[in-house]
């Protein structure tokens, strides 16, 4: 048991010097820059992968299948990260996989924003019965195990790129509704909105010109983080066999295939997963830094 005399300095630390605080913030911003660079790298890879990739991601070579990465014994020249069960170059497939991940991540979140923000605006602005209905809907969606809903949706629509976007878009919107609703609720009572109302502006104008712009920073931060989630969820659906169909390179599908070889060929599962991890990490880092820049009050802890 510690006595209070040793605990006293800890107590003083509760009010960190402004220097520590500034340092903490700089650190956060620096991490944000790293996140931004990761994202930039992803986007560039997605656009230029036909030039950047060392070989064709569909090119099979059954003689040289399951080759380990270059730095291991038994590797095959030209395949930096080794080859998969059909002898395809793992690095090239991972590079092409950025396309699927980014497209699904961004498009799914756009759908989520569209549904979630409109419902949230309406519920928050009008309140009353409309608000109760929307809140009930959000509660239902939250009560539904997300992954089962997304899986059933993909099973109904059939696994394809568009349908995964639709499935993720239509299941992920409640979080945007919640945030938009509560913020709209608060903004509705502010003077500038009351002034606009007094000038008899149309509701559409008040919502789009006076309320929505004030929500943008929060939505931007939330949207960034949600893109990371959508990328992970796409890979998850693909992993469960309800996503992008082979041979299209998707990180989740590659991971699912690699899982069958994890006893001996660990790299087949490790690298596609690492790609998902670093993408999500980069996006989260950027999101955190944005949150810090835009609204220090939003900071966690």
């Amino acid at each position, binding site marked *: *048991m*510690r*006595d*209070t005399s040793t*605990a006293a300095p*800890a*107590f003083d*630390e*509760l*009010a*960190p010097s402004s220097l*520590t605080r500034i340092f*903490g913030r700089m650190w956060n911003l620096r991490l944000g820059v790293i996140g931004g660079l990761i994202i930039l790298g992803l986007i560039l890879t997605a656009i230029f992968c036909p030039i950047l990739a060392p070989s064709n991601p569909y090119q099979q070579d059954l003689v040289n299948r399951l080759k380990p990465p270059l730095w291991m014994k038994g590797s095959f020249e030209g395949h930096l990260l080794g080859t998969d069960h059909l002898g395809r170059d793992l690095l090239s497939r991972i590079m092409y996989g950025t396309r699927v991940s980014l497209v699904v991540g961004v498009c799914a979140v756009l759908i989520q924003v569209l549904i979630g923000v409109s419902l949230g605006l309406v519920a928050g602005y009008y309140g009353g019965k409309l608000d109760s209905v929307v809140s*009930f809907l959000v*509660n*239902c969606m*939250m*009560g*539904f*195990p*997300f*992954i*089962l*809903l997304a*899986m*059933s*949706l993909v*099973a*109904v629509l059939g696994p394809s790129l568009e349908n995964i976007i639709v499935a993720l878009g239509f299941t992920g919107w409640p979080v945007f509704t919640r945030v938009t609703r509560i913020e709209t609720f608060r903004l509705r009572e502010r003077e500038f909105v009351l002034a606009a109302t007094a000038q008899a502006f149309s509701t559409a104008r008040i919502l789009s010109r006076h309320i929505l712009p004030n929500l943008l920073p929060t939505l931007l931060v939330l949207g960034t983080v949600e893109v*990371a989630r959508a990328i*992970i969820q796409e*890979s*998850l659906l693909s*992993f*469960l*066999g*309800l996503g992008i169909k082979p041979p299209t390179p998707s990180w989740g599908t590659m*991971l699912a295939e690699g*899982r069958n070889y*994890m*006893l001996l060929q*660990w790299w087949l*599962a*490790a690298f596609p*997963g*690492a790609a*998902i*991890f*670093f993408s*999500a*990490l980069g*996006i*989260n*880092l950027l999101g*955190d830094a944005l949150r810090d820049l835009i609204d220090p009050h939003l900071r*966690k*802890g």
Partner: protein
Amino acid sequence: MRAYIIRRLVQAIGVCLVVSMISFFLLFLNTDPALILLPPEAEMKDIETFKKQMGLDRPILIQYGDFLQKAVFHGDFGQSLVAKVPALQLIAERLPATLQLAVAVMIFVNLVSIPAGIISAVRRYSLADNLATFVALVGQAMPLYWFGIMLIIIFGVWLHWLPISGSGSLAHLVLPAITLGSWMLPINMRLVRSGMLDVLNQDYIRTARAKGLTERKVLIKHAFRNAAVPLITILGMQIGLLLGGAVVTETVFAWPGMGRLAVDSIRVGDYPVVQAVVVVFAFFVIIANLLADILAALIDPRIRLE
């Protein structure tokens, strides 16, 4: 309090109804039981007769009403199209494994997140705090199932410390529990930390210290009690995430629980089972949320449930 609980329960029934309706319609569109149950060489005429016998040719609303009546009054979610036993029986067989996993995860998460959160709050910006922040950051970006596979490769395949899949012993439980727990850990750790920071420089803590209480008593009995309220709320909400995560974790570790049952059933289109799993899941989620709210009100008398 009682009125509040009753209202919440009524709401819960509403949510269960809507959830069952959504999943019923989805699965109605999705699967044709006739194609699963009848042999592939069955002719069009046989399929028609079969549909008539099973009542599958009726309008969807009537079929849903029929399903609802059986489910509510007889607890009958229909027969599994594949296993040919009642869907609820299949779930009852799988439920213990999932509950076992859930309990293990809860124990693991709280054993790690509470001490880690308290330490990072008390020693703010120390090495331990920064380490915890870093772990939280990394944990949030980690795809659950990939983390599970990596654990299997490292601790199962390379080091041979733990079994890589299946169930049966305590050792089988370790990797799935860590995998699933890693999902909740970052959030809970941050929550305990910020909850502690909120109260640590308040007057009543200073009073407690001035009374000469040991630091441990001050932290645990006075400060943590306050941080515990949001933690309990989030734990209640996480039951839903946990069940969703169980779907993934059970698939990765071949854990014989409800989550794997759901995945397998969706794959083969065994819709009575999917239906039952979804409703049971939703039920657990709602009850857990309600319990968490009640528990929070019991711990913190300032919370009034109305």
